[in-house]
């Protein structure tokens, strides 16, 4: 079954996104496909013999927020993690098909996965600041990702990242305090600051608000809307209202059971969010968002 999904306007790439090239890319500076910032082509992910997701073809538009939704076990987090090779850290994981980042396959042999994760950053479900000062949380992340500037430049980078994550005003007078002393919402914004300090152009978010209270959730959502000016954001969320509030496009995944009892996720629909949550194209999507679901 092929899930070739396209949206009319994904063919119109927004300007303003810096063109990126991965290490080893001989055509540095080019954007070969001229379509999405990330495009998966018939991507399948396996854990050993178990096929977690099958045949996913998606095209993410730059400077937009794209939400991945679906029932538990549909593979949306697997898809997200495959977009920056985070799945490589799982020994049995294997990816088939292609994941194109500005036109280059990030799974190509010569591509360095560490560099992939720098340019395609990730924010996790539970805030995970390092047990270090607020300043060092940003500085250390930048250093291990190759930042070689002076002390002043590092201070500027920390301030810029914290401002970018809408946290500067709250922490500017206590930069030496532990990152763990912050509230849950502040810790998550610190993790976002850490992610943007490495200058990615895509930020992946795996249920970034599920551990936060409603006010902290709204602040993160506001921040996401600000961040999309400069970054492309792909978010996995269980909260459909959150997807409806923040995203430009939404992908709905479902899960099917094989005769052998294997549950494999697949893409049902990738539509503009406004359409998906008012008049979805597919019956499965309609059933899911109205709660009529097996």
């Amino acid at each position, binding site marked *: 079954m092929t899930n070739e999904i396209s949206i009319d306007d994904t063919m119109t790439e927004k300007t303003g996104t810096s063109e990126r090239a991965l290490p080893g890319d001989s055509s540095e500076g080019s954007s070969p496909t001229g379509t999405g910032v990330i495009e998966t082509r018939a991507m399948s992910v396996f854990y050993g013999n178990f096929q977690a997701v099958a045949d996913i073809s998606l095209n993410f538009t730059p400077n937009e927020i794209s939400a991945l939704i679906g029932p538990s076990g549909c593979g949306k987090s697997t898809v997200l993690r495959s977009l920056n090779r985070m799945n490589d850290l799982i020994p049995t994981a294997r990816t088939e098909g292609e994941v194109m980042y500005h036109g280059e396959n990030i799974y190509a042999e010569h591509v360095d996965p560490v560099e992939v994760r720098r340019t395609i950053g990730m924010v996790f479900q539970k805030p995970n600041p390092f047990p270090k000062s607020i300043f060092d949380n940003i500085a250390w992340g930048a250093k291990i990702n190759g930042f070689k500037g002076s002390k002043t430049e590092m201070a500027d980078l920390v301030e810029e990242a914290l401002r970018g994550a809408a946290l500067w005003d709250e922490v500017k007078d206590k930069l030496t305090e532990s990152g763990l002393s912050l509230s849950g919402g502040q810790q998550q914004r610190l993790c976002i600051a850490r992610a943007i300090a490495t200058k990615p152009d895509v930020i992946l978010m795996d249920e970034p608000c599920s551990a936060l209270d409603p006010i902290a959730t709204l602040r993160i959502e506001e921040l996401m809307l600000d961040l999309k000016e400069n970054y492309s954001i792909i978010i996995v969320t269980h909260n459909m209202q959150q997807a*409806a509030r923040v995203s430009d496009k939404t992908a709905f995944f479902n899960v099917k059971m094989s005769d052998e009892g294997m549950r494999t996720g697949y893409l049902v629909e990738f539509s503009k969010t406004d359409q998906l*949550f*008012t008049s*979805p194209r597919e019956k499965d999507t309609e*059933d899911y*968002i*109205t*709660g*009529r679901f097996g």
Partner: protein
Amino acid sequence: MSTPDHNEKFHEELDLLEQRLLAIVDTAEGMVERAVRSVVTGDIDLAKGVIENDNAIDREYFQIHQDWTTLMARYQPLGPDLRRMAVLLHLNITFERMGDQCVNIAKITQFNEGLPSSDRICELIQEMGDLVRPMIRTAIEAFVRKDLDEARLLPAMDQPVDRINANMYREAVEVADNKNTLEWATKMLMVARALERIGDQAVDFAEQTAYLITGERSSFDEAGLVKSPNDDTG
């Protein structure tokens, strides 16, 4: 195998809200019949009953609005459920206004008391009433059965209503030589206008049904086909 409904409570409450709205439009249809009969026969008691009936509609309108708001706050529905909620809110207002038009007609019965009338105009008003009530009935049935073809019948059914209303001025001129009959006829122009509005509200009801079914917001043209908002130069 039926699909389990994890949102069963919400769907039950939504069904209930819809039934209450249909009860309002059912009442409104009956009010149209009584309002027209009162104005054509000059039955003051019947007119009074129509006005009292509308008070009950108004109370239910406010209650439905309140319950609608609670449902939205509690369940934040999406997809077809969201469309259904949007349509129910719209229809609540439409049906309340339908009741108001019946009151307008009933009040004219009271204003016209004792004035000489014209049989010809009475016949035309009666005809308009007889055309409008089946429109409401058809719109209700299209909504209940989610029948797009039936909903599309409404614009054609509305055409004779519009035509009679447009010609009513000429009928009033015909009785202009008697000052009292003219006064009566001038008020009857307002009755014709109220019935024409009720016809439009029935068409609007059918357009909401079409939106519910198709997910596309549009109005009908005279043939009952969808018309893009951009086509509307009026």
